[in-house]
């Protein structure tokens, strides 16, 4: 293999070489960006775990800690193993003194010594511990802005009146504002009692934070405390404790990984297609080399060298592009990313990118390279040069290659089951698109088309070397994913944000105590719907204990969390029964287990069915019930729903609070919130209208990010289209010359080539739209459980835009063919 021969071959086939290199780069760009960002985010979270969590060991509970755990903690501290501090965190309304302005806030009451790790930076620059004294609060700037307050003013929290003494600038345990509703309010533990906000049944997170003398002993201390922990009390180390930020980024980056792998696969098809086209042009050269006595090793070595050289250029380009893309993502997610995260490129990015890229290059080029071995010297005499590169790879090698690729995908996604499902889904998508393309192209070829230009355009789709099917499969697959993301996002937005029905409740109140119920109704009016809420944990299904470790790893909802049980004897307005005889199974034999009705979504999570025995713990009291019916929601609103519904007699005596849903004019919501919180300080209001706006902003940002990543896969389709046009340049040139010799003018030639690309674009767009509509419908109905709207006009506009781009791209790539003089072609061709 001589390097200058490689360069000569590359220059001679520069069109396909550029397409191949760009495909390799494209396959890398999003993967490198996602992997590098993931590495950075995980690095910051792991490095700063103690500061992020607030301690080496963290003990959490939804209620007061049990005496056994208190005693054990006292022993640990007494033995000098750790120092401890406490933090109570909850949401409530902060009010402006002498005004009606209220603000739903994230309140944290802390004891002395807080924070043990990290910092709470204040605007004054003074130490946090010195500033936060009894009677004082430290607040986020957003609270001052929205309530029109300033440092020195007083803030009303429940029944307490506290002075604002400083402003929080940065907080290690809350590096990102986006994941918590409401601005921060810090208060001293000693003031909790005067606010009256924390009481029995209120929704408060109790936390002990421990700083160990020997941080290496975290696991041991955690195990010791866990051994004494009661139900609902969780002990974790800084390393094992999850956080909303970590979960958010894990999920976001996982989803982006899926799209990145999808782009890799489509760009891989592009690599294969462009290399096959390049090698088709080399068939005669290879045949001559063979006739002169060159062996397979020599020839394969040469072309493998060419592939690796171009692949390496592509990978380096892809790594550079990936790091640039990461920078763009960094900008887009500003405000969502931890503050300490800095934009950097590491050696790990480089090596991982190289490894992934070269593996992809070798996999996707194996098929065309293997075809070289089948080219015989006799190919010199054949006029047609398209043969010789077809299906040389045995099925076993293809299977092995697929397994290898699946392994790469699984490693990238870090999830075996999802990885395999993903590969199966992509293969299915490609197969469906391939089948559709084959059917339509074959059908078109059989049509008796009267228009000469259209007939010629349709016939041209099957010219030798034309990658019509590959173009349709890749373009349509990429578009299907992009359309699906668009449709699902539009439907989610419609279900949860835009079309929030006028008569639906927009103000919720949490934690109304049993004895406050009547007064609450008096205050807000009898239109309020009240739902009893009993907090409980699910311990087992049919005596099979819930595997909490496995449940925690679930990406969606899990069975390990605390559930809200309720009781009533009828279905809600937006519910229907999908299984069972009535809510509680009709007439039941006395003495049996109490009945429970399940919502279909929890049935799916727990793989439950009617007749199953569910074992709950309600604040330590055991309750076993038999599943008697399955409900489903008919409308998908931000409307209260409960996984588990019991008859009243079963839960009536259990400790419970009430949840109220009200519909009030948006302008009056603040006033009502203020009145309720003034009267019942422990009650927390949630203004759904405001929450929907916040949710909408987040969705818009994330969907832009996802759409941007998905649009990269469309580039793969575009590259294959240009590659296909370049590969058939000679055939197109010959056609254009024929048309001109026979009397066709430029308009006719343009019309034929334009129509050919139009058919390709419409076929790709149409197939993509069909699959996207069906897929999105299934996703909305079966997974998200929301109603589906097809958005036909927007979809058709999208298909129209894509069609315009494809036709323009096709014509642009054919310009040199269209302007060629017939005589010049004939002279060059004959010589």
């Amino acid at each position: 293999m001589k390097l200058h021969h490689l360069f000569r071959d590359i220059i001679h086939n520069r069109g396909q070489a550029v397409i191949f290199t760009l495909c390799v780069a494209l396959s890398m760009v999003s993967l490198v960006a996602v992997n590098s960002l993931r590495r950075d985010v995980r690095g910051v979270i792991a490095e700063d775990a103690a500061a992020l969590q607030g301690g080496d060991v963290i003990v959490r509970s939804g209620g007061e800690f049990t005496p056994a755990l208190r005693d054990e903690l006292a022993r640990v501290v007494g033995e000098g193993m750790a120092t401890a501090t406490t933090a109570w965190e909850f949401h409530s309304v902060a009010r402006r003194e002498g005004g009606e302005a209220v603000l739903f806030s994230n309140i944290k009451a802390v004891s002395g010594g807080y924070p043990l790790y990290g910092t709470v930076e204040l605007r004054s620059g003074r130490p946090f511990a010195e500033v936060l004294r009894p009677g004082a609060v430290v607040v986020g700037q957003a609270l001052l802005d929205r309530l029109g307050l300033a440092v020195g003013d007083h803030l009303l929290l429940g029944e307490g009146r506290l002075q604002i003494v400083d402003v929080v600038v940065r907080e290690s345990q809350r590096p990102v504002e986006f994941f918590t509703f409401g601005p921060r309010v810090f208060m001293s533990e000693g003031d909790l009692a005067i606010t009256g906000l924390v009481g029995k049944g209120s929704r408060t997170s109790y936390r002990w934070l421990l700083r160990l003398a020997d941080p290496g002993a975290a696991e041991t201390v955690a195990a010791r405390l866990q051994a004494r922990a009661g139900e609902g009390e969780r002990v974790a180390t800084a390393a094992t404790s999850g956080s909303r930020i970590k979960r958010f980024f894990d999920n976001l980056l996982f989803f982006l990984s899926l799209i990145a792998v999808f782009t890799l696969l489509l760009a891989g098809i592009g690599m294969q297609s462009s290399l096959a086209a390049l090698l088709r042009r080399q068939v005669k050269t290879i045949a001559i080399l063979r006739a002169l006595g060159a062996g397979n090793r020599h020839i394969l070595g040469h072309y493998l060298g060419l592939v690796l050289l171009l692949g390496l250029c592509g990978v380096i380009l892809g790594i550079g592009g990936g790091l640039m893309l990461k920078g763009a993502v960094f900008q887009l997610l500003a405000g969502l990313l931890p503050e300490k995260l800095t934009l950097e490129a590491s050696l790990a990015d480089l090596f991982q990118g190289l490894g992934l890229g070269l593996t992809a290059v070798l996999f996707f080029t194996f098929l065309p390279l293997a075809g070289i071995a089948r080219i015989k010297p006799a190919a010199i005499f054949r006029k047609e040069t398209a043969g010789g590169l077809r299906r040389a790879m045995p099925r076993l090698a293809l299977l092995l290659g697929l397994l290898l690729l699946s392994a790469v995908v699984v490693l990238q996604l870090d999830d075996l089951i999802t990885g395999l499902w993903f590969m199966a889904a992509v293969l299915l998508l490609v197969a469906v698109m391939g089948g559709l393309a084959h059917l339509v192209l074959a059908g078109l070829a059989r049509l008796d088309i009267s228009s000469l230009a259209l007939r010629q355009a349709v016939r041209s789709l099957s010219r030798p070397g034309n990658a019509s099917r590959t173009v349709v499969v890749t373009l349509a697959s990429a578009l299907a994913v992009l359309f699906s993301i668009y449709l699902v996002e539009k439907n989610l937005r419609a279900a949860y944000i835009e079309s929030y029905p006028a008569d639906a409740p927009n103000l919720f109140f949490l934690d109304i105590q049993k004895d406050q119920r009547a007064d609450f109704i008096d205050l807000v009016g009898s239109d309020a719907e009240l739902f009893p809420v009993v907090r409980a944990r699910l311990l087992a299904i049919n005596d099979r204990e819930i595997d909490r470790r496995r449940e925690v790893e679930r990406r969606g909802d899990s069975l390990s969390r605390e559930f809200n049980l309720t009781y009533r004897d009828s279905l809600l307005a937006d519910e229907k029964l999908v299984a069972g005889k009535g809510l509680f199974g009709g007439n039941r034999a006395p003495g049996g287990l109490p009945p429970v009705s399940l919502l279909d979504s929890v049935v799916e999570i727990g793989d439950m069915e009617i007749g199953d025995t569910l074992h709950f713990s309600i604040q330590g009291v055991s309750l076993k019930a038999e599943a008697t019916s399955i409900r489903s929601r008919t409308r998908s609103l931000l409307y209260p729903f409960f996984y588990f519904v019991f008859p009243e007699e079963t839960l009536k005596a259990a400790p419970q609070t009430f949840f109220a849903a009200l519909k009030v004019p948006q302008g009056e919501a603040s006033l009502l919130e203020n009145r309720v919180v003034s009267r019942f300080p422990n009650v927390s209001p949630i203004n759904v209208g405001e929450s929907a706006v916040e949710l909408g902003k987040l969705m818009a940002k994330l969907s832009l990010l996802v759409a941007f990543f998905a649009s990269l896969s469309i580039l793969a389709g575009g590259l294959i289209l240009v590659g296909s046009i370049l590969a058939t340049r000679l055939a197109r040139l010959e056609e254009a010359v024929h048309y001109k010799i026979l009397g066709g003018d430029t308009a006719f030639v343009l019309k034929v080539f334009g129509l050919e690309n139009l058919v390709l674009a419409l076929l790709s767009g149409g197939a993509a739209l069909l699959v996207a509509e069906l897929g999105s419908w299934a996703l909305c109905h079966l997974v998200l459980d929301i109603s589906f709207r097809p958005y036909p006009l927007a979809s058709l506009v999208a298909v129209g835009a894509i069609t315009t781009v494809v036709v323009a791209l096709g014509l642009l790539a054919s310009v040199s063919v269209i302007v060629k003089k017939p005589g010049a072609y004939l002279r060059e061709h004959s010589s």
Partner: protein
Amino acid sequence: MASPILVGERLCKSYVRGDRKIQVLYEVSLAVDQGEFLVIAGSSGSGKTTLLSILSGLDLPSSGRVILGGRDITGLSEDQLAPLRNRQTGFVFQAFHLIPSLNALENVMFPAELGKDPEARAKAMTLLERVGLSARAGNFPEQLSGGEQQRVAICRAVINRPALLFADEPTGNLDSRNSEGIVELLLDLHRNQGTTLVMATHSPALAARADRLVRLHDGAVVTSADRSL
């Protein structure tokens, strides 16, 4: 004496390949009368094909001019030439140049369809029957032999009944049996339809049947004679 249908005046053609300028034609002048059968003969590389391309308007001369039917076509654009190629001239190539994606019938129909002739299909079928290929009308070029392809190409060239037919080595890629059939077909069209035939060939037997012979050597006319070699 019939008026010339085609005139070439002081035609020169050169092009640059790499850093070399190649002169293909030197001041070639000739006139072709209506209904005449003219053969342009010469060895390989003498400039026959280039001269034919320029005379038919497929290529531009570096200097000189071409007058077709009394109209100077030298400076016409591709789009101005298109209707002339479609209606007034036909071209038969050595390499057939059939459109591979169209079957035999569609190839023959193509120029008539371009001219929006509603009888295109019927005319094409009649021509194919005449050359004995009606049974192969649905076959694609790759399914036809060389002789059959050339017969289809001739049908395509004459479907619009052009006044002038150019043929560039029409038997160059055929065996002797097929060559004879093609020559007879062309001469038959020339005789029965009064088509002017300008043919480039290096076959002495074919040249012997021409009304007039123009011999080229290194891009220049060395002999021009009536009915003689």
